[in-house]
């Protein structure tokens, strides 16, 4: 990445590959799903970034790799300069306390048989907070922070008694309760109602500012990103195809895929109804057997024969701080 931050970055991903081997009968290798394929980036302390992509682009695998739930096949993730690959036992557990995780489906993310108090107590218990009063204090503080008030009423409730927005607040409280330095939010609002989405995004943004957290959003919806992140990474078929500061990317997209995404989206307007949109044909490629060269070339209207279908495009920098993996910028 070309952005330079004065401090050492919080997270560095270096040539990350997360492949899943396909096996027959549990042992015979027959191929691999290349969910994350050579992805590099750095996340500075206190910044919010968004990873944008369609389903099957490898977002979730990237998230799980960052969380340390998958070991990368190649490359490494460094957190505060320490590689995750070497972490085991207590060190790995300590890392998990430093990373909070907010999931897509708030109802599924909460065990349905525990009430809010127990749900929030779990991470504390796992990390050895034995004092009951101390746990209670931190649980209440976390609920205050996500504005689930009155706290007293919420503590004894089970997830199904809460609305979607409230459930997601509990999920956020759980992600924050161990005081992480990095929060990863995987599609945090896609299952929520339009009117609630903004609330949750605002909440995350405020907490991020207040605590000086690093926030990594994963989303498929470019429209929600503008006010809630500083940088965007656009993923396509396991690779980062474009990355830039938010305004820059939304106003001047450089990669044909990003352009297609933006062209498919609309702000509400009555004129939309009479306008056919330009949509690239075809579907995202299989991650088992992705196309050679640029992975977008079969759907790209500007693909150059002999180049795009042969050579994997490197990251070009058409504008300062803005990189795009596309031969058009050669």
């Amino acid at each position, binding site marked *: 990445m070309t952005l330079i931050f004065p401090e050492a970055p919080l997270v560095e991903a270096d040539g990350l590959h997360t492949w899943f081997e396909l096996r027959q009968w549990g042992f015979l290798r027959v191929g691999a799903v290349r969910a994350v394929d050579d992805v590099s980036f750095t996340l500075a302390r206190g910044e919010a970034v968004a990873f944008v992509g369609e389903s099957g682009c490898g977002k979730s695998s990237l998230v799980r790799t960052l969380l340390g739930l998958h070991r990368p096949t190649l490359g490494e993730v460094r957190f505060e300069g320490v590689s995750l690959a070497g972490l085991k036992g207590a060190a790995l557990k300590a890392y998990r306390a430093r990373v909070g995780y907010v999931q897509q489906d708030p109802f599924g993310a909460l065990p349905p048989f525990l009430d809010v108090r127990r749900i929030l107590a779990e991470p504390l218990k796992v990390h050895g907070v034995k004092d009951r009063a101390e746990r209670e204090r931190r649980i209440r503080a976390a609920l205050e922070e996500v504005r689930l008030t009155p706290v007293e009423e919420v503590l004894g409730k089970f997830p199904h008694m809460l609305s979607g927005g409230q459930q997601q607040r509990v999920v956020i409280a759980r992600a924050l309760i161990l005081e992480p330095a990095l929060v990863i939010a995987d599609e945090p609002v896609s299952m929520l109602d339009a009117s609630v989405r*903004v609330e949750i995004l605002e909440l995350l943004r405020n907490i991020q500012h207040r605590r000086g957290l690093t926030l990594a959003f994963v989303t498929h919806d470019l429209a929600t990103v503008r006010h809630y992140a500083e940088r965007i990474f656009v993923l396509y078929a396991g690779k980062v195809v474009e990355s830039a500061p938010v305004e820059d990317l939304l106003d001047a997209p450089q990669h044909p895929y990003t352009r297609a995404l933006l062209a498919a989206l609309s702000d509400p307007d*009555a004129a939309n*109804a009479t306008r056919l949109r330009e949509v690239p044909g075809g*579907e995202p490629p299989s991650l088992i057997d992705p196309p050679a060269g640029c992975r977008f070339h079969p759907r790209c209207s500007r693909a150059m024969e002999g180049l795009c279908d042969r050579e994997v495009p490197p990251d070009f920098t058409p504008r300062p701080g803005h990189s795009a993996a596309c031969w058009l910028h050669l």
Partner: protein
Amino acid sequence: MADTLLKVEDLALHYRTRGGAVRAVDGVSFDVKRGEALVILGESGCGKSSLARALMRLLPRNLAHHGGRVRMGDTPISELSDERFRREVQWSRMALVMQASMNALNPVVKVGEQVAEPLRELKRWPRRRALERAAEVFQRVGLPLDFMARYPFELSGGMRQRAVLAMALVAEPELVILDEPTSALDVLTQAAIMNVLKELKRDLGTSFILITHDVATSSELADRVALMYAGELVEACSAARFFGEPAHPYSRLLMKSVPRLHERERPRAILGQPPSLLDPPTGCRFAARCPERFARCEASPPAFVPEGGTGEGAAESRHRVRCWLHAPSRGGEHG
């Protein structure tokens, strides 16, 4: 009005639960003209899917009340017996694409056969003829013909959604009801499906009722928008008016809460939560969240009346609002 295709008055659907009757659809009236697309917009739990079920008579077992008058063209379809409704209206005049129905395709029957099914089942068409018609619709919705011989699992989500759409269109209905047709799909696929719908509307003159919670999606097809809140319609007007300058405070707040790609203004959340449909408030159902409420709002429920008071042409106006701010006379009780 001669060109009115569907006229719905006082449609109601209540469910029986342990807590009492849930008034999911509570006296909803609207009309749809031929070739028009009406979007029914609303948050989850506002009753918009129940509205589709009430129209299509897909009634649940815990039904407490189903009522209202529905006319389609000259036919009072709410008067028809269930058997006649099934034979004469379902599929052939009015088809429903249910939410997530793309995942409800029969996994062991070829897609082409499933699309042809309504014709063979309801119209008793021979297989060959039904499949020929299915092939026509396949082309209409942009599915390659060789997909007819495939099984649902061999198709991507977008392709399955097209197949479900083809099935709805196969008997040439005058009205297609779509319940969240794109909410589970990716951005590009969504746009492609919306393109198909636009083409169908343009080329075939099919009327649509699109049910969605997504404001941006709704603008992709809408001629008119009806906004639903807590079982009732709160505003119905032209798309231009709704996306430009809606009248109801809820509509205005909703428009402000939509994150936009190309605007610097931050979206703002609507605070509070919708009321329980078990025991809706006596006054305006939005009053508790409304920044413009005044004493009357909580006291008595506003009626769904033409916007702009009792002035000239108000009676014919198709812009209706359920709000005391827009009542013909803010002093009187009669609206």
